[in-house]
């Protein structure tokens, strides 16, 4: 089992993701430079957080045009598990691999804090086995995490079970005050129709060990490992 951690100019959570995968979960992980045009030999892809290309133009707008993103498209179309975290989520949106877009937080502030997420679906490789309704404590760190999609897209996401995580209170209750950025429907993460591509603003790789304040993030990587093991990877 081998995982790819993509690295773009300006990625800055790539080492955190590598550490969580390799040293905490204990799976093989490799950095893949964005100029690479193939992902053959990898079983899962992590698009880490950061500020690719300095967020020029829009978050993720430049990174979506890197050669490796064509490889990600092919990998995703073949059913391979892909997780985009924070800027990685923004790149997946810009690349059209997930619907919607990110706008500036409604508070106009960069939010860097632990938040609570309610797990909405176990259908993605990264939430497999996590019961719906389970509350995870995972940090966010972003200025543009205000998820936007038109009403039609939001309805389709809800009806299709594509909302993976929603911001909530520690009790699991979804309230306006638990939404850190103004996201539509309190969305913290969504998946594609097939369920194999997940984008989320919170950072599971930053909280995969108790010493960091929470180990809830590890659940997502453990889920990925068991999903892959089931498929003989």
């Amino acid at each position, binding site marked *: 089992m081998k995982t790819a951690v993509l690295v773009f100019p300006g990625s800055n959570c790539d080492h955190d993701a590598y550490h969580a995968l390799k040293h905490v979960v204990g799976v093989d992980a490799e950095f893949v430079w964005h100029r690479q045009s193939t992902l053959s030999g990898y079983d899962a892809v992590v698009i880490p957080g950061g500020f690719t290309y300095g967020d020029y133009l*829009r978050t993720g*707008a430049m990174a979506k045009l890197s050669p490796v993103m064509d490889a990600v498209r092919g990998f995703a179309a073949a059913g391979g598990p892909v997780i985009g975290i924070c800027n990685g989520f923004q790149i997946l949106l810009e690349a059209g691999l997930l619907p919607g*877009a990110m*706008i*500036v937080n409604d508070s106009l502030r960069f939010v860097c804090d632990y938040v609570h997420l309610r797990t909405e679906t176990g259908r993605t490789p990264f939430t497999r086995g996590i019961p719906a309704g389970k509350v995870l404590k995972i940090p966010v760190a972003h200025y543009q995490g*205000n998820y936007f999609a038109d009403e039609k897209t939001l309805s389709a996401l809800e009806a299709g079970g594509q909302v993976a995580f929603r911001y909530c209170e520690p009790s699991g209750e979804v309230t306006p005050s638990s939404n850190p950025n*103004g996201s539509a429907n309190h969305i913290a993460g969504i998946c594609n129709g097939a369920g194999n591509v997940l984008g989320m603003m919170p950072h599971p790789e930053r909280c995969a060990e108790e010493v960091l304040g929470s180990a809830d993030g590890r659940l997502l990587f453990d889920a990925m490992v068991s999903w892959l093991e089931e498929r003989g990877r």
Partner: protein
Amino acid sequence: MKAKIYVTLRRGVLDPQGKAITASLGHIGIGGVEDVRVGKYMEVRLHALGPVEAPRPLDEACRRLLANTVIEDYRIEVEG
């Protein structure tokens, strides 16, 4: 040859920056401002393309990179 490209947030997309600017204009005593929407303005210099050929590649540039049509509209002005 020069082109001007205006990228603006679509109607219905919240503009927190515009809201903050609207409030700040009120704070400095400039009354009557109902709403402000913040957008982007780009100047593109093109060589070897005339005003007839230029709009097509510029339109593609807007669709594929310069604007995100989920949240933004764009307008292209080509100067002769």
